[in-house]
């Protein structure tokens, strides 16, 4: 009995070899779409599956595909493999160990929007992975699954990998496009959205690696099968990157709707040293810090429930667990320092706000703050909110405001008496 839909390498050894992948129903879905399905039908099937974007926003994938206008060509597809959110390491495992399923997903998406060129945009640190994927793309070309007139049809597709230069912001889709075009990685104004005006000004579909990896089995087994997992509004399975103060950190592929409690204590083996859990962050560094009380722990990890119950979006489902030993002021100084380091500098509030918050938290960690500096930190964070060009600036404030509000005592300990 196979346990995995996405992390199939855990069931099937050497699935990163094309012959093994093919022997395990690999490329059946792609062959089906290019040979027997209309692009619109592929999109419809994905729409019906209820698959939502796994990059963090949770936008319905099929609907996103439908945004590409049919009066502007060519279309491009980009796999966002810039996975840079602290605490997120799911795409990496997929690409390292189950590359063909990801690539097949990318090929299906490309066919659905009739793109003849697709890119895999990888964060700069993934250079080994890029070389590895290049080999796998080559295997697919040799086997006739990529290139001109694939499998005797009229459809042609080329996939290229592209390495970023090590900037977190390039995971933001418009900054990614700038970087892919060879420019400085800074987000563009939206609208227009990439679906209308994307790479080189052409309609462009950008999907996360995990999102794409879902596609082969959705096509092969159908939308209804996929909907048998997960919740009504968040169908399917999700890879939860679990990290922090847990006994068994790692990637867990589970149906959406699994609770924090189950993920952390049943799958993750509980808290290290049997410490008391203090808080959770659900979307890496870009998260609210949520007090891990019973209400929180009973929250099902699905897009709608996280938002409704604990007002903290599921995001990329990178669960960072924080126990009673963690100093929230230290945590905030770490996240703020990360955002200060990664702010692209294009818009004022993010560039200056992250820098300011970073200096304030640095003083706190050196125990040279005054009590009013805690309020100042919170005030600067609030002053950044709602004014930035892209989401990075907004994200930089989430941990700050929630941690100060919910764990003020941790900050008070750093105040000079």
């Amino acid at each position, binding site marked *: 009995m196979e346990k995995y839909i996405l992390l199939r390498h855990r069931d099937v050894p050497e699935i990163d070899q094309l012959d093994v992948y093919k022997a395990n129903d690999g490329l059946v879905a792609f062959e089906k779409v290019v040979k027997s399905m209309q692009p619109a039908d592929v999109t419809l099937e994905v729409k019906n599956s209820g698959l939502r974007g796994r990059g963090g926003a949770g936008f319905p994938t099929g609907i996103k595909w439908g945004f590409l206008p049919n009066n502007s060509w060519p279309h491009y597809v980009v796999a966002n493999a810039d996975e840079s959110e602290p605490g997120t390491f799911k795409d990496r495992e997929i690409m390292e160990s189950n590359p063909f399923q990801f690539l097949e997903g990318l090929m299906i998406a490309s066919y659905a929007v009739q793109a003849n060129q697709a890119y895999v945009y990888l964060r700069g640190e993934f250079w080994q992975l890029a070389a590895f994927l290049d080999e796998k793309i080559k295997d697919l070309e040799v086997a006739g699954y990529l290139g001109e007139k694939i499998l005797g049809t009229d459809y042609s597709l080329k996939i290229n990998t592209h390495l970023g230069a090590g900037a977190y912001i390039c995971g933001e889709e418009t900054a990614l496009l700038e970087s892919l075009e060879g420019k*400085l990685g800074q987000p563009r104004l939206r609208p227009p959205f990439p679906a209308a005006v994307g790479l080189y000004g052409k309609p462009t579909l950008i999907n996360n690696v995990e999102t794409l990896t879902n596609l082969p089995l959705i096509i092969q087994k159908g939308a209804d099968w996929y909907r048998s997992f997960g919740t009504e509004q968040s169908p399917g399975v999700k890879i939860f990157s679990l990290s922090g103060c847990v006994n068994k950190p790692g990637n867990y592929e589970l149906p959406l709707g699994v609770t924090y409690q189950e993920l952390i204590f049943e799958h993750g083996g509980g808290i290290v040293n049997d410490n008391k859990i203090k808080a959770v962050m659900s979307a890496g560094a870009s998260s609210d810090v949520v007090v891990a009380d019973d209400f929180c722990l009973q929250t099902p990890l699905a897009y709608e429930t996280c938002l409704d119950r604990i007002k903290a979006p599921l995001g990329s489902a990178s669960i960072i667990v924080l126990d009673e030993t963690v100093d929230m002021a230290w945590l905030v100084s770490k996240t703020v320092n990360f955002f200060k380091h990664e702010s692209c500098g*294009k818009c*004022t509030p993010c560039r200056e706000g992250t*820098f300011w918050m970073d200096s304030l938290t640095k003083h706190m960690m050196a125990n040279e703050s005054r009590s009013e500096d805690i309020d100042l930190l919170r005030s600067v964070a609030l*002053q950044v909110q*709602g*004014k930035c060009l892209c989401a990075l600036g907004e994200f930089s404030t989430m941990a700050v405001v929630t941690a100060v509000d919910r764990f003020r005592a941790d900050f008070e300990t750093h105040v000079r008496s």
Partner: protein
Amino acid sequence: MADMVTLKIDQQIVTVPAGTLIVNAARKAGINIPVFCYHPKMEPVGMCRMCLVEVGYPQRDRVTGELVKNEDGTTKISFAPKLETGCTTPVVEGMEVRTTTEKSNEGRKAILEFILTSHPLDCPICDKGGECALQDLTMLHGPGKSRFIYDDKKLFAKHVPLGEMILLDRERCIQCGLCVRFQHEVVDDPVLHFYQRGRSLEIRTYSEPGFDSIFSGNTTDICPVGALTTVDFHFAARPWEMERDPSICAHCAVGCNLIYNIRREAKSGGKTVIKRAMPRQNEFVNELWLCDKGRLGYHYVAAAERLTQPLLRKDEKLVPVSWEEAYQRVEDKLRAEQVRLVTLAGGRLTNEDLFNFHQLNQSQNGKAVLYSQMAGGDLTAQIGLGKGSNFSDMGKGTAILVVASDLHEEAPLWWLRVKQAAQRGAILIVANARPTRLDKFANHVLRYEYGQEAATINALLDGKGKDEFTQAAKAFSEAENGLVIYGSDGLGLNGSEQLVKACAKLLVERGYYGKPNNGLLAVWDKPNIQGAWDMGFHPDRNLKGTLREADVAMIAAADPAGDNPILAQALEETDFVIVFEMFMTETAKMADVVFPVQAQIEREGTYTSGERRVQRFDIVLPHIEGPKSDYQIAAQLGRLMGLSTEDRSPVLVMNKINEKVKGYQEITYSRLAERAEQWPLISRADSYYAGTGYENEYGVGIQISSSADRGEELSLGTLILVEPQEEVATGIKVVPVTALYDRGQLIQPSQILAKRLTPQVLLMHPVLSKKYQLQDGDQIKVKVAGNEIVSGVKLDADVPQDVALVARSNGFPISSPVFVQIQRLVPEPEA
């Protein structure tokens, strides 16, 4: 007419074209939304977030699509939860914008506080202090106190040279990107870039020489802080210490409007001096920009070697004399019987000077000669650019043909405006013997061999020949409006005459004249060549002979002897030479009488630009003791000869011009001072919107009508091409081209441009150099018309293979194509 939409901004009802950005709609209504990264001449980017305002949209029922009404019957407006950027959001019907609410004010204050956390606040020593957008907006909207710990400020390098002309202060930079975008989007010199990210973001240049752009100075105007300054103005003066005087740039035929900032200062010995030149808005001419030659090339004014006293030749030597004595000497000469007078006038004289010179010349039946190697001023007066033409209005439906001109070098602002017209959809055809910076924006690029200029235009008229010619001919003939811009690339007077006739014929046959945005435009090499033609001066194909045969030559604003040894020889044979000059030129040295004249900026006058816009300039600096205006001297000589020439004021001379000169009927000084409605609405008081350029309070000038505009009968003469004579000559054919930074008299004193001056070389193709066994960097001896000159050699694969190029006014006496003998100089072996 674009669809209009009506919206409400702060209780004001505003109606503007659909698509207008909120910030511009507000500005039209007199409501100022502060900005830093926005500029009305560039695409918005929404980076600085200074323009955040509350934006409400009329609410529609999701099901019916009907507007939702309030209880009182008004449309319900739903405001976005977040503030929106006014510089990126287009207005829509029924929108409501609130710019002064608590939320908007808080947003502004927040952004200013953020910017100031990393700003050095060194206003007391900053060149921008007093005209700084950040300073002004902080005073208006900023927090009085910073909550940022001062010691945490990041320190960066100051006075970083981006090349030798522009300095960058990294601490002051607020990363608005205006300079980078200006260089990329507006002037297509992408030599500035952002480097790094976050607070480490910095402006860098990667060109060699640094910041290699002829428009670089404009970035110092649009920089909203003191991050970019010209080396010229660095620590030179405070803005509030300087007065402003409007003027017109005298470096080319575009006639850019500018302001000179002047100050009386101790370090200049108590004299009033020019501290800098700034653009003055004229959306019909230079918009908000200046090229660096216009901005930085004013230092000649302070050159020490000015002539201050009339000089008279006595015992073979020029000695200072009184004005009376000098006048008397000239009067005596002119009163001699049957004197053959030639008046040779240069294109930097004003209309008033030229008119008076012409009156004097005519009274003696003299020959009025224009010192120029370009023909066609009679044709531009008849079928030139129609009254009401404006490059800004050109786009789709207009075909622009640029022939024999490297517009980027000859008239930078026209290059910019033609480029932008092409980007708006005008059909651009560029015909030249070599590649130029305009090719990139052209729909059709046509190549010919030097000498084939007129033939090329005739081929376009026939629509026959090579494929690209037929396509270009078709594109040109199918437009709604058409204009031809002709220059002097590789041409002498003969070639120019052939070319302009062909151009005129093409325009007439296609009907492109006598209406706005149609007609003929000459890229004259001096500011007032058109005015000189209009006042009755014409170039002379046999200037050498004319000078040689003259009994008396009056030479004003021209240095034939300095430019060309052949003309110097001719002048030696002229009996009596009268020179009107600022400097002791080679020609002045040969003169019998020298009259010292005032510089353009010391006097009033008018120029007629290439677009035939008459523009007035005022006295900028008090004139130095001694010299007079050319028009005055000419008038006083005229009076001695019994004429009623006007010597009191150029204003009064213009009143005579408008009586006598066709096309100038409507020109008076007061009409020239009329302002016009211009967009964008700029103001020094709120320089954050469009930079520190000046609003135009002094008048935009008047474009005069052409004969065709007035419906007069045209007398274009025969427009039939004369086959050029086969030249029988040996050696290398050298053709003259125009370089922006040449070694002209007016530009050399500007030391800041010294490194950018065009090298003194023969530019040739590697194939040609190989034939003569020359290498890049070699020195050669050039024999041209009996003279020997030493020159360098520079190789350039863009140059045609059979000719060498030489820049005019760059130390090589060449004004038309010529064959030369060359000999490689072997460097002396080092001891």
